[in-house]
């Protein structure tokens, strides 16, 4: 006990004297954490039962946080205690935070619109805020412990959200699979991290990167890299950890699936980009570089192999789905593949920076188009009680606005011009091609062509298939629903036609300050 107290005093003095962390830079995350408590308290005070208060409260809080991030100044430099910097709320994390918060906002909105009795209303919001806070920290974590804590926070809240609906067998099953699979993945990652720590003797990514660069490729490091990647792959729903994804997305409520598909994936990519640009792309593998025709590192090899497998798996398996929700799950896997493909070429050079900006940019678009598509699923499950694609039959005639908007989203997901998805795909493929990975890009393009088939399926049902008498679509969107889908569809077209300069510049700015 004795040696501890002077130490404490000493440290406290240091803290007061010099680098009192600028807490304002931690504010959005702090606000989210605060909201967890606020809602718990409100729930305690109010007692059980549904209330219209929570959604309003949540949306308001998220909006405030969003604005704070959007208008707050960004200062580079990690925040941390006593020579142990652990969070860096830089431009990269800022843009991802915007993605998380926007997704969170939309998720609350969807839940509200889904008119689904969630039962323990308050808890849902508590968990959601927990998840958002975790994501915000994950996007700016610069060392292992903070990273791991944030990572697990995002995971656990995700498990809970997926398995939230206690009265639904599918939901329960989804939660079980998610939690089991997540736990195993994180264990695998943790084992990898422990090895990395062992070899480098540091928790700081920056130090680790330096040490690894000096170490070159050693078998144990290769093993560690693969294990660590396993954890990332789980969150990103990438091969070989994609297994949970279809079952969980299908079993979860549609808004939750939307949240997982966008925010959760974005969070892990945010962390991944940070890790990669801290010099994680280190060491070289002569045999592989010979195989690939280019100089490539272990990490790059892993990313490329996983990218190819992921997009192929996702696209092909999606072909046979009849549930739109499950199809979107596979589509989400496929998109993880495209993103990994581009992630494999990021670096400090110009094209590497463009690749990184491309990924950031794609998330901005993916946010819009994927959430929009999940909103259609939400409506289907709400009105028709099923996510089966055939429920869309005849929608083109009955609800043309909805159908056309959804069509735009699907075209965007496929990557056809003149939608934003095309611009996004272009930014994903461009650096890959420009760096000379023609084969990889070709695999991507073939996959893009395959994806056309299954994205065309809802189109066919909506516009082409003849309606059976008495089996007309039961979708009954009201004005608000139409306004929401239109709000998702219109930016896709506008962005596809005009605005990409600004948005892309935003993405470029976001990655520019990453060391």
């Amino acid at each position, binding site marked *: 006990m004795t040696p501890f107290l002077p130490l404490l005093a000493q440290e406290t003095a240091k803290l007061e004297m010099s680098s009192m962390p600028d807490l304002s830079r931690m504010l959005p995350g702090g606000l989210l954490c605060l909201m967890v408590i606020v809602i718990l308290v409100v729930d305690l005070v109010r007692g059980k039962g549904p209330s219209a208060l929570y959604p309003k409260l949540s949306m308001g809080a998220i909006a405030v946080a969003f604005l704070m991030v959007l208008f707050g100044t960004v200062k580079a430099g990690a925040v941390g205690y006593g020579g142990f910097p652990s969070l860096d709320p830089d431009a990269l994390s800022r843009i991802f935070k915007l993605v998380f918060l926007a997704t969170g906002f939309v998720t609350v909105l969807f839940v509200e619109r889904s008119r689904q009795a969630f039962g323990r209303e308050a808890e849902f919001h508590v968990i959601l805020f927990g998840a958002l806070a975790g994501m915000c920290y994950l996007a700016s974590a610069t060392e292992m412990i903070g990273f791991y804590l944030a990572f697990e926070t995002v995971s656990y809240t995700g498990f809970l959200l997926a398995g939230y609906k206690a009265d639904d067998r599918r939901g329960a099953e989804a939660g079980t699979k998610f939690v089991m699979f997540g736990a195993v993945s994180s264990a695998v990652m943790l084992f990898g991290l422990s090895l990395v720590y062992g070899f480098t003797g540091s928790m700081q990514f920056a130090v680790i990167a330096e040490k690894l660069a000096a170490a070159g490729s050693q078998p144990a490091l290769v093993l560690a890299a693969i294990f660590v990647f396993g954890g990332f792959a789980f969150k990103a729903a990438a091969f070989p950890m994609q297994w949970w994804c279809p079952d969980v997305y299908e079993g979860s409520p549609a808004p939750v699936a939307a949240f997982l598909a966008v925010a959760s994936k974005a969070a892990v990519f945010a962390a991944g980009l940070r890790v990669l640009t801290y010099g994680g792309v280190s060491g070289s593998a002569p045999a592989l570089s010979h195989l690939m025709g280019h100089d490539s590192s272990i990490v790059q090899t892993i990313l490329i192999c996983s990218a190819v497998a992921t997009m192929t798996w996702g696209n092909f398996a999606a072909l046979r789905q009849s549930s739109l929700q499950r199809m979107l799950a596979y589509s989400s896997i496929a998109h993880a593949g495209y993103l990994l493909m581009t992630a494999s070429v990021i670096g400090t050079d110009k094209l590497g920076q463009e690749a990184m900006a491309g990924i950031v940019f794609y998330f901005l678009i993916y946010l819009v188009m994927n959430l929009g598509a999940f909103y259609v699923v939400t409506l289907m499950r709400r009105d028709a009680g099923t996510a089966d694609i055939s429920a869309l039959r005849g929608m083109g005639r009955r609800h043309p606005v909805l159908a056309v908007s959804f069509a735009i989203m699907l075209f965007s997901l496929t990557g056809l011009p003149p939608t934003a998805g095309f611009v996004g795909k272009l930014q994903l493929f*461009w650096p890959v091609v420009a760096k000379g990975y023609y084969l990889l890009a070709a695999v991507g393009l073939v996959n893009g062509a395959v994806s*056309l088939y299954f994205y*065309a399926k809802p189109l066919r049902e909506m516009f082409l298939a003849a309606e059976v008498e008495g089996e007309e679509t039961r979708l009954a969107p009201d004005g608000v629903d139409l306004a929401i889908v239109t709000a998702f569809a219109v930016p896709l077209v506008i962005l596809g036609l005009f605005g990409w300069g600004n948005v892309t510049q935003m993405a470029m700015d976001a990655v520019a300050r990453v060391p």
Partner: protein
Amino acid sequence: MDWTLTLMTFVPLAGIPLLWASNEAKVQRWIATIVSAVAMVLSFVVWSRFQAAGVGTALGSSPLKVDLPWISVGSFNVRYTMDVDAISVFMVVLTGILGFIASLSGWGVQKNPRGFFAMYLLLLTGMFGTFVAADLFLFYVFWEVMLLPMYFLIGLWGGPKREFAAIKFFIYTLVGSVLMLGAFLAVYFQLGTFSISEIIRRHAEIFPGAENENLRMVLFGALFCGFAIKVPVFPFHTWLPLAHVEAPTPISVILAGVLLKMGGYGMMRMAFPWFPDEVVRAWPVLATLAVVSIIYGAFVAMAQTDWKKLVAYSSVSHMGYVLLGLATLTPEGVNGAVLQMFSHGLLAGMMFLLVGVMYDQAHHREMARFGGLATTLPKYTFIAMVGFFGSLGLPGLSGFVSEMMVFFGAFKSALPDAKLFTIIGTLGVVMGAVYILIMIQKIFLGTAKEAHAHPLHEPSAREWIMLTPLAVLSLFLGIYPRIALDMIDPAIQSWTKEFTPHIAAHAEKGK
């Protein structure tokens, strides 16, 4: 800055919201037709302004050019460049005319006319844009913009197998555009520009050197296949009969009249001038494909029982002449090919309209079930004869001049075995007569095979307005082709000149 091209391209797009001005189908039809007419007039304006600037004006120096920065991301620079040379002007005028005529033909659409015309006008914008875009990326965007409305127009307003046809069309075309895009990006990566005219000027810098020979060939092959699907050249043609047959009449007209031309246009604008040496090297393959298309299309057309399918296969045959003419790299052949594109636009459009007129009345297209129309419908027969004999290559109509020039060019070409290919190709002339005459015999001659529920009647006034201009234009071009040739010949001469050293070098190597 001259905004005529932009205006022309986007007038149809701007017309789409107007369709919501009224819920009455009649008003919507009028709106669509007027918008198309305005676009047509603007296409004539483009023509006259281009003429005023001098017909020899090359791409990049026309006063109609608009060049603005559009998308600039890192090393990725796309410009909004719209520009024309003689060949694009020629195609733009064709698009204008057929666009107007097909909009009239669209009056027959009963099911959701508003949706139909909205898609149709979008398609029109895409077509104009494709012909006037002088930035590769812009070109590609317009190219893809056409795809979407086409998919719906076939898939929603088509015949019984429309879904199948729409998706087949979509996938074939998409494969083509993916190949095309790959080549575009590779070229961009090399030259760092999307400007079509600049790439043409600097084509020697595209992966130069003997060590890149195969790569260049692959790129040329990709571009060629991308465009060949659109043309369509055997064996990439199988989407065409189905799409043509299932598409509603106005869309068949546009498909045959304008969309097929984009393949030939793309070859002229991109594939060939970028890779002149590869064209010369690939000549035997190109010529074989062209000749096979000509003859194969004719033979298959001969065996059809469905009237529209016969016309569709005749397109395969006729577009084979376009490829043959282009591949000869002689001024005669290329002039012929460009003229054939225009002429086929008129005549194929006309033939599809003719079939459509009868289909609307009889509700079937089985040739065996018609017969004796010459007796019952003499006026219809007369106008039909213009279309069909024009397609057969009768002198005095445009098809003759273009086919003739293609053959003159092919025979004159210095490329190996050009004469042999020409001789085989002329078999297509005979076969062309065979299938057209068989069809005429089945439909128009003899006596009626069966009584139709409603007696067939002569075309309506609207249908005459569609058919007559096409017939007159075809006749006019057949008698006085100068009007076209004087415009395109200078451009084509400088186009073909680029290939001369490559042909010579190739001949040298052959020795």
